[in-house]
């Protein structure tokens, strides 16, 4: 890689700010809500933030779930507010969906389903990564 390539790459990662990886199922722990809080704060400070869903984290995107059945406040409903926070880059790992025999039926729009390599590349375009 030449120094000018590195310069281009580092500019790219600057542009993309923070990536948040969601790797946990939605209702067995507070991780999903903790990640959501971070995402919304970054959005409200007008900082770029992208969301990645991988492993059991993909369950956070699946449509027609009812958290009230297990007496949990449904933080997943807040996902529909992403556009108001300018959170537009939402990626889900295709292999994680396949492994869990889940359809690409999500409760929010504009989710990008990416193969593992592409998922990794998208992640790599960010300067910072937090994982929940």
């Amino acid at each position, binding site marked *: 890689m030449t120094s000018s390539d590195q310069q281009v790459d580092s500019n790219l990662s600057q542009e993309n700010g923070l990536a948040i990886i969601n790797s946990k199922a939605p209702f067995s722990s*507070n991780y999903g809500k*903790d990640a959501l809080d971070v995402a919304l704060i970054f959005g409200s*400070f007008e*900082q770029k933030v992208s969301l990645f869903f991988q492993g059991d984290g993909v369950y956070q995107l699946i449509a027609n779930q009812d958290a009230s059945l297990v007496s949990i406040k449904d933080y997943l409903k807040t996902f529909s507010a992403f556009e108001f926070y300018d959170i537009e880059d939402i990626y889900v790992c295709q292999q994680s969906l396949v492994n869990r025999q889940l359809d690409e039926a999500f409760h929010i729009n504009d989710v990008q389903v990416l193969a593992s390599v592409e998922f990794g590349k998208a992640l790599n375009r960010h300067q910072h*990564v937090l994982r929940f």
Partner: protein
Amino acid sequence: MKTLAVVVTTPPYSHLTITALTYVETALAAGIKVIGVFFYQDGAMHANENISIASDEYQAIAHWQRLNQQYQLPLHICITAAEMRGIACDSIDNEQINQAFTVSGLGELVELTTKATRLVQF
């Protein structure tokens, strides 16, 4: 100048916290500018003055305090995470809160992230 910010999500009794401490101290000793440590999720428990860990075990809280004093390392706890873990954050001279820690919000995490060249999570 390259700067480092660290996020700690593990509780004071977690062995993973030892890794975080070793990492931060090594960075500081190497002259790297660590602009702050943000304690989120179970990490917020570090600021609880009432935590008592057996004296023959690793004293994570005492080590954070030492780094805070020795290097003026800013230690921020997330108020929401702290309050849901029983640490009342309502007054400044609060005896429940270890004085080495500053009560902050997630906005501080945004601040640290935008200022840091690199952000590392434990």
